[in-house]
């Protein structure tokens, strides 16, 4: 009888093992990078119906976040401002800019002559009310899954800044998803809140940094400041399911 397999076949097994090992590790690496929120969410930047410029308003003009996002310190939702908020300035500023057309539509609605009063032929659907116009369909960027109950009020009021989850919005012309906001992300902060805690006045100051006077490393400075606040305020973020899942 003769050999069935050629001589070179003897080296195949070894090559196979090495090959599979490499493929496997690439696969794992690929999944951990592409199939996790780090990749799937971060950078999501839809085009909005109105090209609102956060960098300009929040950055240059320095309008406080809470001026528009009124719910953020009272409610679980931060709340997208109604057209009336925009118009409180833009009635005077750039009042006829074409970019603001949707805003004006939404604000005035049936009020054709924009006098705020119900006058002849304005009440189109005849309900005796001066209805507002179509809402501006802002595209949602940050969304926790339905079974996660994130509450803005408690974070903002206990010294967690917007920047922790939303990044430097004051440097974004158009807002994008900056942090991956996975459960691991939440847990990380809930385990060591001192990395994020800051004085209440600085919560909406996205560029704030802990006092560097007696520490060279900003991180160490932050942790020191944070630990003090954590102790004083009795901060004890929940680590168990009930904190976020109900």
């Amino acid at each position, binding site marked *: 009888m003769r050999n069935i397999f050629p001589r070179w076949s003897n080296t195949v097994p070894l090559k196979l093992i090495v090959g599979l090992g490499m493929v496997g590790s690439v696969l794992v690496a690929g999944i951990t990078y592409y199939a996790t929120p780090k990749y799937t969410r971060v950078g999501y930047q839809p085009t909005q119906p109105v090209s609102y410029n956060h960098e300009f308003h929040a950055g240059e003009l320095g309008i406080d976040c809470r001026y528009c996002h009124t719910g953020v*310190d009272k409610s679980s939702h931060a709340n997208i401002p109604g057209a009336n908020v925009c118009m409180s300035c833009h009635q005077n500023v750039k009042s006829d800019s074409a970019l603001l057309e949707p805003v004006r539509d939404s604000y005035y609605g049936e009020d054709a002559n924009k006098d705020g009063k119900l006058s002849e032929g304005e009440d189109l659907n005849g309900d005796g009310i001066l209805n507002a116009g179509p809402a501006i369909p802002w595209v949602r960027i940050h969304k926790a899954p339905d079974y996660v*109950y994130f*509450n803005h009020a408690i974070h903002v009021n206990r010294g967690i800044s917007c920047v922790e989850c939303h990044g430097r919005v004051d440097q974004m012309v158009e807002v994008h998803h900056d942090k991956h906001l996975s459960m691991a992300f939440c847990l990380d902060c809930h385990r060591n809140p001192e990395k994020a805690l800051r004085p209440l006045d600085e919560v909406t100051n996205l560029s704030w940094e802990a006092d560097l006077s007696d520490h060279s490393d900003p991180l160490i400075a932050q942790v020191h400041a944070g630990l003090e606040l954590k102790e004083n305020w009795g901060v004890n973020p929940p680590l168990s399911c009930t904190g976020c899942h109900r």
Partner: protein
Amino acid sequence: MIMQNNQPELPSGKDYWKSLDSLADTDGFKEWVSREFPEGASMLDGVQRRSFVKLMAASFGLAGLGMTGCRRPEQVILPYGKSPEELIPGVPAYYATSQPTSRGFQPLIVESHQGRPTKVEGNPSYLPNGGSTDVYSQASVLDLYDPDRAQGSFARETLKNGVNRWKKVSTDSVLDILDDEVSEGKVAVLVNRSHSLVRQSLQKKIASSGIQWFEHDAIDYTSAENKLGKALGLKKGLRAVPNLSTAKRVLSLDCDFLGNRESNELSNTRAFMSGRKVLNSADARKMNRLYIAESDLSRTGGVADHRLRVESSQMIGFASLVASELLSKIGHSDQSLKKHLKNLSSSTNSQKEWASEAVADLLSNPKKSVVLAGSHLPAEVQLLAYEMNRLLGSIGSTINYIEVGASADSILSLASKINNGSIERLFILGGNPVYQTKGFINWEDLSKKLKFAVRLGGSIDESSQIANYHLGQSHYLESWDLGTTWDQSFFVPVQPLIAPLFDTVSEASFLSHLVGEKNDDHGLVKNIHSEYSNGGDFEDFLRLGVLATKPVSFNSLDATKALLSIKPVEIKSSKLTEDNLEVVIIPDFHAHDGQYANNGWMQECPDPISKLTWDNALLISPVLANILESKHPGLGLLPKPTMLNKNGQIAPDAAQFDGGKQKAPIVTVNVGGKSITAPLYVQPGLADFSIIATIGYGRSHVGRVGRGTGYDVTPLLSGESLVLTGASLQPTGDFKILANVQEHWSMEGRAIVREANAEEYISDPGFASHMGAESHSPPMWGKDQNKSLQEKATTTPRGNSAYEHPDHTYEKSDVFGIHQWGMTIDLNQCTGCSACVVACQSENNIPVVGKDQVLRGREMHWIRLDRYFSSTARDGAEIPSDVQVSFQGVACMHCETAPCESVCPVNATVHDEEGLNAMAYNRCVGTRYCANNCPYKVRRFNFFDWNKRKTDELYQGPLGDKNDSSVDMGKNPDVTVRMRGVMEKCTYCVQRIQESKIRTKVNAQQKAKFESGKDGSGIQLSTQDLKVPDGTIKTACQQVCPSDAIVFGDISDPRSEVSKLKNNPRDYSVLGYLNTRPRTTFLAKVRNPNPKMPDFASSPHSAREYHDKAHPSHHGDEHGAH
């Protein structure tokens, strides 16, 4: 022919509001949207509609519909064009309103999320109810979103084959036609009884405009007051309003004053049960005592200390017996009256001893005792009860008689007037008279005589079938009204929380339209308020929700003459036998008088006593059952005793359970020529020859939920009494499968519900801890036995276990809780009203699974009400006739050493640092091991996509229809809606806990910041500042409970209410010997029997059953005791 028809405006009930999409199609909805969400309206048309629905969902913040977190479709947020000032998205708003019912207006506070009413609570400003609600108010919010509602107005077209089709028309057009018709004259209005002042004021105007007025209710709660008024020869009604908080002894003559057969259920319960709160032996000594003589086993009977089974038709005799005992005991002078009562009561001598001892006890508590008579009983009994109360001196102390207006003309006179042609045009408002009266009124003929008829109703029902037009009636959460509570001590408003979803009209505006008043109902209510409040602020009234007033009380008069006029012949009802049975017709627990027949929550909420869902049955006594079995062999009513029954291992089932499904034989009931067929159900505790039938089921024209459920009793009705005699039963040989959620009725001598008599309690307050396996096993806590509740809660000492338990104290652990949550349920306070069950369902988005799934044992209620019977009879084969009832609300116990947690392979159910047994739905893979390992069986599994699929298409899986999303609008956005394949259970309303904790922290921080004025870095907050104050958090079940049986709070705080109760000697854990250390513990039940009574037992039956099983040796002397 009017009996057969289809759903309104569509050939088959199938393509009916498949989802929000098609909801958005309906004009009414579009209009509503344009008013509620102006910005959305314009997007409703054409291709954008679909997207609009999505947006609406977003702006509603409907949380967690389906739990797929992985895929994220692009979502849009729609802000307001002009944001309303008061509305903060994500923060619920609360409004005071009330629900108009035939039992008076129920004061409510309703929770609203972004304009959607989601949860109903009682209005605490109405003190008699103390913020509690009954089961019906809880369920009423579901009706608002019922897809089978009449979505606007319809015109009836009868096809050649006689089938009715309904064509959608605009309400205004109907109202215009109506005006012309009214001008024709010969108009009548038929309404259900109401306590609305708006209606009252309009009624006058209507009368003056020549329109005739008739009222009807199948269950007429005002009948007693009218009978009594007439019997005493008054022009007005005389309403008995008991004041049970001061009553020490109560004798109830077939009066279910704690149940749905009488008015004032809530305030009665609250007042009466407060007299049974036992925290120490002093309370036990002054505990009140209830005697009841009844035919049905009512919830009141379940609470009673002494219960006598007497057929309702025998009540005059029995009442006279009691009265004559009373007269002789107080040495009444009037001999003729004595004699008269003697021979009235001649037929009831067997009950003499019981009656005389009861009366003696009533007399021993002067001014603190009261006699109550069921409203369905004849004038004679009402009169006797009144006179007894007068003689007992209770009037003014334990019971008040207030004057009310006489009742309007009855439906019978309406019928005759239609027949003689003096009425040609009829408006039927509310109620459902055609369904309720078809037993004695031939509507088919009447409808031919009518020229024009309009029906104003919430849904297209039997009464719509004789009408030319059906006007959609607005839900009470959509309309304005103003009325009084039953006791007439308060005015309460009805204010809308949401603009009408559809093109519907409220009763008030309909009536005002009738009299040509064009002002809107809001104005109407405002005027009436100013009229009654002599210039009080309307806004304040709406904010508070109540306005106190004074009922006209009646100064008592001697009823002797009236009593003497009772003729013996009238009451000499022949003796009852199996051939001469009585039928007692009562309101159904689920459907009430039929108005809740299409309410899924009510349908699935088990009847407290019979534990039936989705059906009603004819209840008969075990005695009658045995007779029937012997008369009709193979009837299959009672199961053959099994081996375990025979050797006394377990008690026999009260019905045949075929593979866990109750198999009930169907019989024909004949009464005076009329007959119905219905399934039989053997109910321990019934009077031997009574048949209890419930009204409200077997509706022929009802939505998809109620269709085909139950049997219809109305053909038997005669228009006079609800108690019919001369009935007989005839088996048909058929069977019906009934969805009974509790197969086994006996506790089997297990120390689950622990009970003692007052005397026993006084001599041994800790009796509960001397029962159960743990009482004779080494102490669970081992060396830590004597630690305080707080230490135990925070450090979870190891007791005898081999493990070192994690420590939750602040110092020792990185996971620590500043609260430790716990609950107590006082078994002595529970009457079994089941409001907690529906409240929980409403609060926690618990799905309805349908009869088929209930039959398979898959009901989803997080809290269930276990009902056990116990009796003296312990011979295995017999079903007892005289039973004691014990209720036990069972929800997740949040065990500290939870058996469910340690068997979950994926950490889906774990403990949180505050002692909650958390259930992370989104982590659950559904091994169901936790449910197996739960000794209390409180975990519920989503076997199907209950929330996504229609209950009748579950088995079609992805091919089945999607559920009506309209119901989703009523869901609580703070609670995840669970998908198929995950486990769920009671969470102690964790959403409420978290909200309160967050609010407390936020407030503490802001307060401190405000005070310090600094950037907050200097703020010092102690754990005390961050603790939620005791009583802030009320779980849904706790909030509705009229008798405060449920108390929830922080057990790490020794001053909290719950801690105090847990330190009460009555406190015990169910199955404590398993060392599960439940955070929910129970306060043992204390009964208060009268040693002199013939049916006295030295200790409750259940307790004796336990001792018989636990210590068979003592068996002898146990019985020697009595």
